[in-house]
């Protein structure tokens, strides 16, 4: 039971962690909660859904390439949508009071949800099962290849992101902009490009989290982003919002806690537990586990 829930938790945590990275990166750079990120996740899932149902697999040996293309295209689609959202609805508000972008993001969220509901479907739809799933018996518990796949893919993407941020010039520019907009600008960094890049990467990771979520649970709906969105935000806060390593770890911690709570306490109230964690962390340690103490700018 324990190991089984641990495996479930790690799978769930992988999705939360990928999802949380988008929240944390945007917060790190703009100090805003990108409320519309949960809709990027949803749209990502729908792009994946659309391609999985439209594109045929020609031969079984093309399967890895097929999924690679689908993942890359859904990431790209979700990322570009996130960039567009930023350009249209957050950028004009960069100098406004702090609540303005949050309200604008809520507007975007309402808009995107209803757009998908009206243009695609208001019902939940089954996700195409094109990925062959095998069951393994390890340590006396059943593990599906899908769970290993989700976990592996999440770790791979996180490693790529780490390398990108710590080793490349663009990554350096991102860190500089997160530190101080004005100074970064004085060093010749184009802030708008960097912010767009952050939305592209964050949105892309959110989009692929959506696809993985669809593959894992087997169905999607226009409002599927809301609950995982709050949980991913909780994960980001848990790890210290703005902190990339923290978001990854926070995602895994939250996934495991939720799976264990579902297994040992009650599966009905597992969402309540996630919300309680969110409130408690924000109340007692708003800087999260890894977050550094930040004095508020006046």
């Amino acid at each position, binding site marked *: 039971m324990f190991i089984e829930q641990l495996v479930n938790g790690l799978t769930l945590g992988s999705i939360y962690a990928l999802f949380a990275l988008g929240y944390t990166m945007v917060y790190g750079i703009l100090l*805003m*909660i990108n409320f519309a990120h949960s809709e990027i996740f949803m749209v990502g899932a729908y792009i994946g859904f659309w391609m999985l149902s439209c594109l045929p697999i020609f031969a079984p040996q093309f399967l890895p390439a097929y999924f690679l293309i689908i993942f890359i295209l859904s990431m790209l689609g979700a990322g570009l949508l996130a960039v567009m959202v930023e350009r*249209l*609805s957050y950028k*004009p*508000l960069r*100098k*406004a*009071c*702090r*609540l*303005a972008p*949050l*309200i*604008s993001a*809520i*507007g*975007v*969220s*309402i*808009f*995107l*949800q*209803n*757009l998908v*509901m*009206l243009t695609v479907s208001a019902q939940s739809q089954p996700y195409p099962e094109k990925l062959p799933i095998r069951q393994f018996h390890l340590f006396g518990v059943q593990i599906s290849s899908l769970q290993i796949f989700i976990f592996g893919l999440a770790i791979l993407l996180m490693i790529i992101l780490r390398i990108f941020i710590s080793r490349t010039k663009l990554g350096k520019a991102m860190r500089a902009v997160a530190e101080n907009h004005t100074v970064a600008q004085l060093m010749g960094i184009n802030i708008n490009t960097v912010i767009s890049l952050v939305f592209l990467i964050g949105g892309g990771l959110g989009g692929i989290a959506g696809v993985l979520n669809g593959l894992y649970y087997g169905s999607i709906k226009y409002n599927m982003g*809301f609950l995982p969105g*709050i949980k991913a*935000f909780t994960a980001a*806060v848990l790890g210290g919002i703005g902190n990339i390593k923290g978001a990854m770890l926070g995602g895994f911690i939250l996934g495991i806690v939720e799976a264990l709570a579902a297994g040992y306490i009650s599966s*009905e*109230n597992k*969402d*309540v537990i996630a*919300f*309680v964690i*969110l*409130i408690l962390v*924000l*109340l007692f340690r*708003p800087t999260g586990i890894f977050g550094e103490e930040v004095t*508020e700018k*006046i």
Partner: protein
Amino acid sequence: MKINRSIIWIIILLLLIILPLAGYNCGNYYAIHVAGLVGIYCILCVGLNITVGYTGLLDLGFMAFCAIGAYSAALLSIKGIPFWITLPISLFLGGFIRYLVGAPVLRLRGDYLAIVTLAFGEIVRLIANNFDWLTNGPKGLPRAGERIAEIRLFSLVFKDDLLFLYLILFFLLGTIITSYRLEHSRIGRALVAIREDELAAKLSGIDVPQIKSVAFVLSGMFGALAGAIYVHWIGFISPEMFTFWESVLLVSMLVIGGMGNIAGAILGVFLLVGIPEILRPVLGTKFVDYRMLIFGMIMIAVIIFRPEGILRSNRRALELHTKEKE
């Protein structure tokens, strides 16, 4: 000027008394029902305005307090306790729980506060959904065989929409007067000071946590009031009425109508609830499907191009437009 104003108020009051009666006599029951709904939303929105508009604290879980008011009123009245006793209990409960939530939460910065209120709103909804023994879960109250008692005032039994409309208007008037008096009181000015610059407010000797708490509790009580009336009117509640999107809808009404302005809050309700409901029979249900899509766009446009809302509060407009110079 002063005489003019009071004449306008008297005319509005008379219209509010005569119009429902006229509508009822013409057989326009749907309009009466919509008016009642608009009235309930107005109480909620004017109440929420105290937190969001005056104090500048974004609250994304306001429906939780409406739910607390509604569930407490329903549970008590099923036991046969009359409305005029359950109402103060519901109000107290709404205010008290809001106080308990607010005490630790109000220390948080703006956007964190928004998320915590959101989480609390969802917790209340999930509890209502999962605690079957108390709330009958998703099936809602009252359970089969039970009945929410009618509101009685002397020999008057509130049963049809018309009487309820008058009751709602009565409480709405009370809400508006309270809110108006608050806005122009010492506390109201302190709230605005906190909204515009918390540090400066603190330095001017305002007890920031306490004043915030007063605003927070008061608006929670209005939420509970609306819930308690609503449940007696409709005679049924379920957790699905208090979703996050309802809370968001309230905030968008304030944003579009004009934050910090009572008239703005009421205008927001008319735009987002009144007009769609009136147009529903005309344009069909297809329009109702599209309204949220349109509201989303309007919300973004308003916050970008006219952040003070359609009917602006002068103080807020002043604040928003002087900041641009920085």
